[in-house]
């Protein structure tokens, strides 16, 4: 569970002191909805975004779901690829957000590191045609991309191999690295694997993602086989 009711209320109270134009619009035992606007004043790469965005924030309570945010004034172009049809913003992969908050979710940090930079990326992209910090591929590719980055590997296949090792094996630093470099694991990708294998919370995120990836990949392969058969 990301939030129990008491934690959610406590964190919302803090958030409202940071963003004075947000108010609680709805609250029950399953969800809190904040509504209003935020002023984003952030800078990177010689560009500053200083703009106000009307938004709603949904904070699920007693659930494993992450909070979501909707931009309510259509200030983001309909064709911008990082927004869902219902208007909610695709801030990051769940993997990246869950890994960031493996030790407990913090709404204020989530706003600072995910929500505000989302608007920054959008405006920067509109101005310069380039994502300032990059973007994730859609769907499964985005999850794999997150692990490639976490584990410092170029190839999605290697990322899966390393994830399998996280899920199924004990860490043995002296064995050859799974990336095929010929070096010992601890001198190669061990330093990136080790935190995932020794921290139970991080490990459970990785294992659950691996299950999801396996399931999705096998159903993808199955549907490919079905198409081949019908041909």
């Amino acid at each position, binding site marked *: 569970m990301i939030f129990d009711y008491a934690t959610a209320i406590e964190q919302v109270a803090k958030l409202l002191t940071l963003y004075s134009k947000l108010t609680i619009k709805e609250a029950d035992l399953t969800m809190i909805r904040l509504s209003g606007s935020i002023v984003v004043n952030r800078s990177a790469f010689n560009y*500053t975004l*200083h703009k106000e965005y009307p938004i709603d924030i949904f904070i699920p309570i007693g659930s494993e779901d992450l909070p979501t945010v909707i931009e309510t004034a259509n200030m983001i172009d309909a064709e911008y690829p990082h927004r869902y049809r219902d208007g909610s913003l695709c801030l990051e992969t769940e993997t990246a957000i869950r890994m960031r908050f493996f030790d407990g979710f913090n709404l204020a940090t989530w706003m600072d590191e995910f929500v505000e930079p*989302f608007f920054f*990326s959008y405006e920067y992209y509109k101005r*310069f*045609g380039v994502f*300032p910090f990059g973007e994730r591929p859609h769907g499964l590719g*985005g999850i794999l991309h997150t692990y490639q980055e976490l584990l410092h590997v170029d190839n999605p296949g290697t990322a899966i191999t390393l994830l399998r090792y996280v899920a199924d094996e004990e860490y043995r630093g002296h064995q050859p690295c799974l990336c095929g470099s010929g070096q010992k694991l601890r001198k190669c990708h061990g330093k990136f694997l080790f935190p995932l294998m020794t921290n139970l919370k991080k490990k459970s995120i990785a294992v659950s993602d691996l299950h999801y990836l396996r399931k999705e990949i096998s159903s993808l392969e199955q549907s490919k086989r079905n198409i081949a058969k019908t041909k």
Partner: protein
Amino acid sequence: MISIFDRQNDILTIVSQLDISPTMYKNAVEKYKALAAFLNDCGIDADFYPQGSFAIGTVVRPCYKGQDASYDLDFICQLHFSRDSVAPSELRARIEGALKSSDRYGGKLTKCGECFTIEYADVNGVGFSIDIVPAADESNQKKHELKHFSERPDLIETAIAIPRQDGDRNYSWLTNNPRGFKAWFDEINQPFLEHHSFERRNKYLNEHRTFFDSVESIPHELDHSAMQRVIQLLKYHRDHYYQCLPRKDHDDIKPISAIINTLVADISRHTAPTSDVFSLLTFVLNTLDIYAKQQTMPYDDFHEQYKGWSALTRGSGLWRIQNPANPEDNLADKWNENPAIPEYFFRWVHACRTDLIDSMQLPDDKFRTQIENAFGTDAVRNCLGDLKYGNSKSKPINTLSASKPYHAL
């Protein structure tokens, strides 16, 4: 909220910081006159005259990698004979020989394809260089051909032929017509220049009392009409925008000044010369927005809907910005080789509107952010100080660990 009038004035003040100063102007004139006299003494009978921004009064101090760079002024050294009577290599060699023989210029000389560059010592900390472009009068036959294809045959008489060195021993003639361009530009600029001329020159006089004692003594190159100011604003904005563009090729895809000069002048023909700088800027950007439709709209549809819109076209899928004084010169040639150039040109036009027009409606602190995006924090701070329009510090994003937008399926 600080008024739109004050905001516009502040933007103009920031841009005027990049004007060529009276000292710099005087220095440039002295230098080029000395050069002309020297070449004359060497037996080279030539007209020596400025081309480009110095000729049409739109000089903006250039910027290179975030630093102020040196002024780079172009001069044509046009010998008094036709290209028929000399080989391109010979013409180049004559000018080069004369310059190299000089103690004064020989050591400062570098060669490029069409010109010789002389680097001067800094004046008051500002670097300065002169490009000398050798030229001969264009041949009569060529002029005849050009007139045939030109919409303004009256401008062609001043066409010149520039010797170009493509390789060690490879030379060719390149046709150009800077005097024709200046005549075309001045003709459009004249009514803009006349509007509020006395008030403008008087203001300039008051700001530069130490240099000039009367309105009449201000050289016309230092006086800027609304149209010239629009060009300077756009050039300055362009320099900063492309320098911030996170692409390695940002200098290669930046629109050349000749494109800005031509488009602004051409578009300005269709509005009142009594326009102030920001009304004219709005008109120019609105018009460019219409031209931008050609990125996706078939040319025939565009042509049908916008009859007579000819400054920037895309017939047969090829971008074209006609040099009004040279029918052989498509200023958008490179746009057709590299699609990133038009793509970014129109992105930049959009950014100009956001920063210079739409920003007028923003609260003070957000206006300040927008003009800092437009011209750079330092340029704005140097001109307006730290506090004008409020001082709301932005929080930097950690670029190494910043989140990346995603889209689940």
